[in-house]
């Protein structure tokens, strides 16, 4: 049935968008770093999963358990070495954003260069769990469904952690107002480093999961960064639920337009939706009025 087709495919696609964007909302919303090299880490993780699967016969789901802590550590180090000096000397948030954009732009080329050296320039692609599953008369691939399930699970888990735990509340406090957070004895440097590292771990998880069904090469990082940025801003910076909802909405809109109108308009509808949301709610769907 057409409606079930659109719903199922659209939600699964949207789940992938949300998964790819969750890390950025933490990095931008809490740590206040506009990380332009975000997509490169996704591609790096995807290539790592490819290598693990084709070279070592390790399933990507198992590789996930190794990639997450590794990505956390790497991103934490990057924050301490590259970004803490910028945070220290930034007099206000605007300065930090500009500085971090410039610094992470350079980081983008460094990471891309490392990827090119290690893996070369070609397309990489493998098939894992590309098994059809029939739900309510419509077909979906198992690997995409798994990515969707992870997006919901991870998103939900982190949302709960942010709202129900003390550490999570501290992170949210830093996102709302760093100065006031300092006044209530929250160590904002530690919180920001943690948020940045966690964001990096999330994007690596996203990379491993989407590598199961996408084709990628070293040059695709920017594409993912752009898509993630749209989802993050549309959902409201710093808000995980916003990322989920925005991602799902975009996935549904794209699929609906591809089936009901014309597949050539998928990009157009994505940006149209983005612009409409910003016109109606400039801070994003779940965004805060002041920052």
């Amino acid at each position: 049935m057409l409606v079930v087709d659109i719903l199922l495919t659209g939600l699964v696609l949207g789940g992938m968008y949300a998964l790819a964007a969750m890390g950025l909302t933490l990095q931008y919303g809490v740590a206040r770093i506009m990380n332009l090299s975000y997509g490169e880490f996704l591609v790096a993780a995807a290539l790592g999963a490819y290598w693990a699967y084709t070279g070592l016969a390790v399933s990507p789901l198992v590789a996930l358990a190794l990639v997450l802590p590794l990505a956390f550590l790497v991103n934490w180090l990057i924050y301490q070495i590259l970004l803490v000096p910028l945070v220290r000397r930034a007099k206000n948030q605007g300065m930090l954003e500009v500085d971090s954009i410039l610094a992470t732009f350079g980081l983008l080329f460094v990471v891309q260069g490392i990827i090119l050296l290690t893996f070369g320039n070609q397309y990489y692609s493998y098939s894992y769990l590309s098994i059809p599953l029939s739900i309510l008369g419509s077909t979906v691939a198992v690997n995409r469904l798994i990515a969707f399930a992870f997006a919901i699970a991870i998103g939900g888990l982190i949302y709960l952690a942010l709202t129900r735990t003390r550490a999570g509340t501290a992170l949210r406090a830093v996102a709302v107002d760093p100065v006031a957070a300092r006044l209530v004895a929250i160590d904002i440097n530690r919180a920001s480093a943690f948020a940045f590292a966690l964001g990096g771990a999330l994007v690596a998880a996203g990379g491993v999961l989407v590598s199961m069904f996408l084709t990628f090469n070293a040059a695709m990082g920017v594409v993912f960064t752009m898509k993630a940025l749209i989802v993050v801003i549309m959902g409201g910076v710093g808000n995980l639920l916003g990322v989920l909802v925005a991602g799902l909405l975009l996935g549904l809109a794209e699929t609906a337009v591809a089936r009901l109108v014309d597949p050539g308009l998928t990009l157009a509808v994505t940006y149209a939706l983005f612009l409409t949301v910003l016109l109606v709610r400039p801070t994003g769907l779940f965004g805060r009025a002041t920052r």
Partner: protein
Amino acid sequence: MHKFGRRLTAGVLAAAVGWAVSLGTAQSQEPTSIKVGWAISKTGPYVGGATITLLNAYKLWVKDVNAAGGIQVGGKKLPVEVVEYDDRSNSDELVKALERLITQDKVDFIFPPWGTAFSMASGPIFNRAGYPLILVTATTDRAPELAKRWPNSFWLLGTGAEMANGFVEVLTKLRQEGKIGSTVAMVSVSDQFGIEMSTAAREAFKKGNFTLAYDKAYPLGTQDLQPLLQDAMRSNADVFMAASYPPDTLAINDQARVLNYNPKVFYTAVGTAFPLFKGRFKENIEGVMGTGGMNSDSPQFKDYVKRHVEANNAEPDRWANPVAYASLQILQQAIERVGKVDRAAVIKEIQGGSFDTLVGKVKFEDNLRKDAWQVGQWQSGEYYGIAPANKEGAKAPIFPKPAWKAQ
């Protein structure tokens, strides 16, 4: 006056000595190597295709030529020296790099960049500077017109129209044998190649009395093509054709299998002939048709694959990569026949001569290679040319495409 005279004399003497010395050094300045250059996409969205199809072939050719001592020019063998630039998949960078190769590095010959768009962008530059432009990854129906405008350009892969016509010929024969009907479902990528090929296909289908039951285009970079495939399935066409680029080619094949979409004829364009395609889909490649083709049983080609893997740690694609290598063999043979590094003479030789290459005998007609492979198909694990049906090495198509197996 006295001072004037002395200075004048000294000046004239110095100039005379300088002129004599320069004459002497000019005469003793003989080329010790042939300098070739290229600007190719080593980063950016075109890097995948550029590496698999062109760069690997270029590098292997340089290795082979230098291992044999070099190119025979006049009485001696001159080794090949390479100057390489990254155009970053950006046409401004490409133009800058080409100008640099011509005016600063002053290379003897330049190899073309990747993709139809960049090939056309480099045309005017090569033409103005008088360099031979032996194009491989350039499929455009404007080739005959451009070949006339740029007599230094040579087009090796055929046009989008030829490939589409070749496909329609295959379909017409199948229809005559009563194996398929007259409906086709077609999707195409909205980039130069996809637009040209689908436009040519629409014409060819109309002339061949086929109806397009589904005809849609998708943006470049789309990897989620399930919605389009589901609509193509509903059209119940016997034939499915995608004028696609590598990432979407892979996505279409994967998603068609998940959806269990089994039309009798299944065709995806660029990327179908890549070794990556075989690596990802294993037995499911059987019967999939694609662009181009290759006389893959020839022992010369099998040896080429072995050497290519040794040099590049990757197999060549089964369509344009061997043609790229052949284009350089043509260049080498032309230089050797002319006997010196004279670009105008080399161009003339390529225009008129006949060349023995990896892909067989090549003779240009009005700077176009008219007998290029148009359609290929994976059969028993190797990619063969199936159209034109009367070309040496052509195989009969497998029909119908076997149903997708679980993977």
